[in-house]
């Protein structure tokens, strides 16, 4: 068993110290050590986007980042998307548009869409579809997800 390392990072705006083995992924750290289970494991090899988080504002698959790599960096997970005052517009629009069925892919989609809107406030439908092509949803056929993101962009 490998030795645990102490890592300091900012998770959802708060300074956090945690211990992790060098072989643990950020996704394992978030879920198993920090109990932030909103980031989901769908494939564990970067193909489905269910574990999407923002690392220093950039969209990554948490399953492809090692826990030790976030030393001194900032991570935003789905748990950090809403403000204490209420839901993020994307979250609100996902609800209004019924853009989720089982909901397992929803955290990843919302984090990914947030990353898009953070850099491009008025994307076209094609840009939304292109950006979200790294996120798999098996329930909705994407129609309502794309509509929710486009509607949120209007806010």
């Amino acid at each position, binding site marked *: *068993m490998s030795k645990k390392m102490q890592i300091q990072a900012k998770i959802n705006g708060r300074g956090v110290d945690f211990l992790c*083995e060098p*072989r*643990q992924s950020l996704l*394992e750290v978030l*879920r198993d050590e920090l*109990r*932030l*289970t*909103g*980031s*989901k*494991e*769908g*494939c*564990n*090899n970067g*193909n*489905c986007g*269910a574990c999407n988080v923002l690392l220093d504002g950039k969209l990554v698959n948490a399953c492809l980042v090692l826990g030790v790599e976030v030393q001194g960096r900032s991570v935003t*997970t*789905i*748990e950090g*998307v*809403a403000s204490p005052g209420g*839901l993020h517009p994307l*979250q609100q629009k*996902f*609800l*209004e*548009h*019924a853009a*989720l*069925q*089982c*909901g*397992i*892919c*929803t*955290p990843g989609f*919302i984090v990914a869409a947030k990353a898009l809107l953070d850099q491009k406030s008025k994307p076209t439908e094609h840009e*939304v*579809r*292109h950006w*979200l*092509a*790294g*996120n*798999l*949803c*098996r*329930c*909705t*056929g*994407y*129609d*309502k*997800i*794309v*509509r929710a993101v486009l509607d949120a962009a209007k806010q």
Partner: protein
Amino acid sequence: MTKTTDYRVIGTRPIRHDGVDKVTGRAVYGGDVQMAGLLHGRVLRSPHAHARIRGIHVHKALALAGVEAVVTGEDMPEAGTRVAELGEGAIVVKHLSNNTLARDKVLYKGHAVAAVAATSPQIAEEALNLIEVDYQPLPVVIDVREAMRDDAPLVHDDLITESLGKSTGKPSNIAKHFQFKLGDLEKGLAAAEVVIEREFHTATVHQGYIEPNNATAVYNPDGNVTIWSSTQGAFTVRAQVAELLDMPISRVKVIPTEIGGGFGGKIRVYLEPVAVLLSRKSGKPVKVLMNRADVFEATGPTPGSFIRVKLAADREGRLTAAQAYLAYEAGAYPGSPVGAGAMCVFACYDVPNVVIDGYDVVVNKPATSAYRAPGATNAAFAVETVIDEICEKLKIDPLDFRIKNGAKEGTRRADGPVYPRIGMIETCEAAKKHPHYKAPLSGPQRGRGVASGFWFNIGLKSSATASVNADGTVSLVEGSTDIGGTRTSIAMQLAEALGIAAEDVRPVVGDTEGVGYTDVTGGSRVTFATGWAAYEAAQDIKRQMIARAAQIWDVKPDDVSYEDGILQSRTDRSKRFTFRELAGQLHATGGTIVGRASVDPPCVGGSFATHIVDVEVDPETGKVAILRYTAVQDVGKAIHPSYVEGQMQGGAVQGIGWALNEEYVYNEKGVMTNASFLDYRMPTSLDLPMIDTVLVEVPNPGHPYGVRGVGEVPIVPPPGAIANAIHKAIGVRMCELPMSPGRVAKAVLAASR
């Protein structure tokens, strides 16, 4: 029946009750279950598609620091020859037991042979590498037609073929051959102007739910076990675990967590019994997870198939005869959905003379499970393609042909049933009127196709309990795990019946000790049957509210009316309570009111769908792009239209994936070579346009609100519709799924020679 326009809640689009939990990451799915002292379980799987197990040596794994238990097939009780009803049909218990943990033989790559519980997932995975299994590889058979040959390797030495209801006394890979007959096939063929017969192949495909299977179990020293699982049915998990581990059902409590997709693939147990065995051995809670490759290689899939369809029509374009030969791969154990496929194959049409032969065939692939309208999509691909060819020959519009030949009230299906009021023809008429069908489609290599589909839907048993709260809300406990918004569609039916707002119902999904027996979330039954249970629970509440108002007012219950959530004395109109006012008085007037219901409704309404698709084919690469898609469906009555649309869109897109890309690719050793999301190519947002929906409402006369199941039928038409569109685009008939770029390019080349 209440008129549609009278509804106050039904047909509206409230925010789903569990929505905020799901958009904030707070909803707890099976993989999210945490508890003190939790061990992590992993399963060792066979590298061979077919092999005898000569021995399993676990001592090195047990010696690894952090490993707390190892189990193998030897830990499963002997199942004998029992057959049990455990969810969706009868099952040979030994098959389910051996599928959970193999005993003498492994029958497919990925077959579970042992499992480990350790203090971390990493240690558990290391320990798997230390288990030594001595395999004697055996010849492999993975294709249905190969498996049916007399000289094929036998998947089971003791599987005796049943043919037309009788044992043949002979072992083979054909578990069962059955036949449906209607009228006189030869007479129908003789009356025809056009007879077309074609052969079709469809690949094995997976349900593709994003959340891998999981189970957590705690075995207590008193012999009681608690299981948390992402399952389509807590009660079927209870029944299967009890049966497999030889425990009374009362010792097994199943708590259904949120579930990340299932589509039929999360009904059979895989990990739950293993988690229980590991917990019993270690004395600690154990969570067992699959990885994505495990999911592909060991769960699901839906069968690959070989289908031959012959259709005959007279000069006026009326179908005179139909014949089908359906051979479906069951996977490692008998039980493919070929029965359903055979019942569905001609179900959209009124054909007087029919013969259908079905074959359930075992092969060295994972045991197939239900997948959204199981069996129907394979069959529809074949029949809808031949219908299109007949229309082409007779120069009839394909929707006119379907309107002329469509099944309607009174039509007898070849397997026996006579339809009540159904909406097949209405879907075709709505498709014909839709702007999509009339829109010009120009440009080279572009084509438009249509196809229809049918699925039965099921009823089965559901329970609900509803308690009136002092603030006028109602807490609803129902037994159907919510896989796509059904808490809300059920709550809305309770709200409608009580005359209160959807938001004033607080629905939760009960565990096996918190709610009455409820069958699986499957068969498009939940909004229909569990919604009906909620409706009945509301009637129970209404009766008691009327009695309470009568008691308070000192009048006879007959004197109290209840309408739109208002209770009023018929003789003294000044005596009046809103639901909320009376709810506030319950505690002081005898206690709260609890409504309850358990139903087993018989009158399920079958559902029909007709889809229109425009494609563009790149003749060089063979890639097919979906330009425009419209799904028309008879939904009975849409309780929450947004989620009905969502079912139609999601089903259509699964059908598009099945049509164009998805397949299990096997090498000659029977090993799946594309067991990842990257290589098993499901549709992404970039592959698709918006999916337009048309909700045709032909109310089901057998349901208080006219509900029909809506979830499954939308997967049925896409492969046929797309094949027909490809033919229009490039003049080539595709008879094999998936119609992936390689196959289409090859077909284009072949046609140009």
